[in-house]
């Protein structure tokens, strides 16, 4: 089987599995005062330090959540609420049009239910947001901007955003900016302190850690209104019993992701380049999505549109041959919708129906690429016969 869907989720690292299983058999709530609690707390706090270290953050800036979606929701809604509470004029949210649904839908919810005005910043054909456009948007009325959220790197087409430059503009005006760095962590240098961001989302299962654990890196000056209320854990920002086994495992995966990042990016980037070459050779009219400059995109991401094909048909045909990939962002209803990312980057809607994302990871091999290279030509030919229904 050729697993080319690491951006959906990647296999857990053996070290992360070991760390998790070791903790699963140990009793203790990190909030308890007795010895068992202290032991669990020690695990959690050491993990927090490890993760902070891997991300260029202080331990107190790590707020554990139940995953990337929750961290995005906490940042977007929480920062919006706290900023608006401090000054009711602040109802404008600035964001990009190619965000993950965890941000996109959270922002839309604020517009529908909390009186927010959402402004989508302009993007180039790769989905990239530019600092001067952000500045221009802020300058229209610097007093009414509640928060800014722009992803570090796009999950579908892999485009890397100039996050530091954007955060610098936001900082000039004292506006908190959040970035979803779920796809960036492990592939790019993600240094929270250097980024200048107020908040940043990372997730466990995209870097070889477990499902159901993530974190919001949160500057100490920022206190978002909680989404989850309860026992007051995590700076009172995120209540809920701390998941010590998942946190320990996440920290190990995070440490290894940071340590191995350069080597990973080099190795997987080369494989990705081979994959792109092979697909183009097999299907000369395939259109590469995202930035063709390797410096501008995630090293593990390849994205193609195949004219005249339904992405679903291609997925079915490749799946039948043991090749796993994605048509874009996974959709809960299972019904293909043209990707908002592609539409926002000006892709022809018909072309946007025939897209596939191939994403590599730590277990990817040359054989995976070879399997795809052999299968993609006939699959595209067949899918073209089936056409666009």
């Amino acid at each position: 089987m050729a697993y080319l869907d690491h951006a959906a989720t990647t296999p857990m690292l053996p070290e992360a599995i070991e760390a998790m299983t070791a903790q699963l058999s140990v009793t203790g709530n990190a909030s308890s005062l007795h010895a068992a609690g202290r032991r669990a707390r020690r695990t959690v706090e050491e993990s927090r330090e490890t993760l902070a270290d891997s991300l260029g953050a202080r331990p107190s800036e790590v707020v554990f959540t139940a995953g990337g979606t929750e961290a995005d929701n906490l940042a977007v809604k929480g920062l919006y609420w706290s900023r608006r509470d401090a000054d009711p004029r602040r109802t404008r949210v600035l964001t990009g049009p190619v965000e993950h649904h965890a941000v996109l839908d959270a922002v839309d919810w604020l517009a529908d239910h909390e009186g927010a005005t959402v402004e989508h910043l302009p993007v180039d054909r790769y989905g990239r947001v530019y600092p001067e456009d952000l500045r221009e948007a802020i300058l229209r009325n610097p007093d009414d901007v509640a928060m800014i959220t722009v992803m570090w790197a796009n999950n579908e087409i892999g485009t890397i955003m100039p996050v530091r430059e954007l955060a610098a503009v936001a900082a000039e005006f004292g506006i908190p900016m959040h970035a979803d760095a779920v796809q960036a962590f492990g592939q790019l240098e993600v240094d929270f302190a250097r980024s200048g961001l107020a908040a940043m989302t990372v997730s466990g299962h995209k870097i070889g850690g477990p499902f159901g654990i993530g974190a919001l890196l949160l500057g100490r000056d920022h206190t978002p209104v909680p989404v989850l209320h309860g026992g007051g854990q995590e700076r009172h920002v995120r209540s809920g019993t701390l998941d010590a086994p998942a946190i320990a495992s996440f920290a190990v995966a995070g440490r290894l992701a940071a340590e191995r990042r350069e080597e990973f990016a080099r190795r997987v980037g080369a494989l990705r380049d081979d994959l792109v070459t092979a697909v183009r050779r097999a299907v000369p009219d395939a259109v590469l999505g995202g930035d063709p400059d390797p410096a501008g995109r995630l090293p593990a991401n390849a994205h193609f549109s195949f004219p005249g094909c339904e992405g679903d048909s291609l997925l079915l045909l490749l799946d039948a041959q043991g090749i796993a990939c994605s048509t874009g962002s996974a959709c809960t209803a299972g019904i293909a919708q043209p990707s908002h990312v592609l539409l926002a980057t000006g892709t022809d809607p018909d072309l946007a129906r025939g897209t596939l994302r191939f994403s590599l990871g730590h277990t990817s091999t040359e054989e995976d690429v070879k399997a795809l290279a052999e299968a993609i030509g006939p699959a595209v030919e067949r899918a073209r016969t089936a056409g666009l229904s």
Partner: protein
Amino acid sequence: MTQTSQRPLRVLAAMSGGVDSAVAAARAVEAGHDVTGVHLALSANPQSFRTGARGCCTIEDSRDARRAADVIGIPFYVWDLAERFREDVVEDFVAEYEAGRTPNPCLRCNEKIKFAALLDKALALGFDAVCTGHYATVVLTEDGGRELHRASDMAKDQSYVLGVLDEKQLAHAMFPLGDTLTTKDEIRAEAERRGLAVAKKPDSHDICFIADGDTQGFLANRLGGPAEGDIVDEAGTKVGTHEGAFGFTIGQRKGLKIGHPAPDGKPRYVLDISPVNNTVTVGPVEALDVTSLTAIKPRWCGTPPSGPGTYTAQLRAHGGESEVTAELVDGSELHVTFTEPVRGVAPGQAVVLYDGTRVVGSATIAKTVRRERVAAGG
């Protein structure tokens, strides 16, 4: 005569989320075929949960189908055929009612969606056959041809709604439930035994895109709201009013809301619907007797019959059989004469001709000829 071919086929199983199609897919796997499940998203708004809906268009059904596919152990996809369905089935349904006819959307769906749009795509993607949970039997003839027959269990037979399939469509159709001599309860028991959670799911509505079963309301909504018109008797005398002629069906007795009885005290039935002047004609049950009909757009399951022949005919889903003689005229019109008059024949419905259990072909009823009667009270 056997349904299952010896050769393992690549089969696309249409899975509605109901129990029949799930068991059909499981049986296809058991017969050794390489099966992939597909759920057809047919609703224009697949995101909506419609409470109480038991049709084939909800997210819930899609999830049920997916869960069944997971249990059976086959790949599963959702294909969005909502646009084709809207054009070929829903719009056709509305237009037919608007013209005073009574369409059968399930036939249309089988003809245009399941065994056309879906089958074409399946074949293009390298599948050999489409499998559904219909109760009907495909029989291989000695010369390698295909025949469609009634299901072994006449009580569950659905060959009527498949009567529109031609030989080419039939060549790629698989109905694993067709030779089941079991009750629906036993199909449910089989589903249970196979670990399929849909075992206890209620049966679907007749018309999947009318979630609440309120056809009148659906049509009123589509055809511009109620337009009051007259209900008249056979002599043309006004006996009541209605709120839109399109909602009625020939032979309908309930829901006329006339309020006062006929002079002879007998119940009245819808005899005729005239959308042009928005009039519904009612009369006694005898006036429904039809002696012959003309049907158009014939589709043959194999070679069209030459010359007049004796057949049995079925005139609606779950309807009984009638003895007829039928003849194809000019290759495009089917003339059907009943040995004994039949009641409640509605233009727009299909007449399906059978030779024994074999489906010969079908056509859409265009005109009916009523039996001449001695005027009531004359």
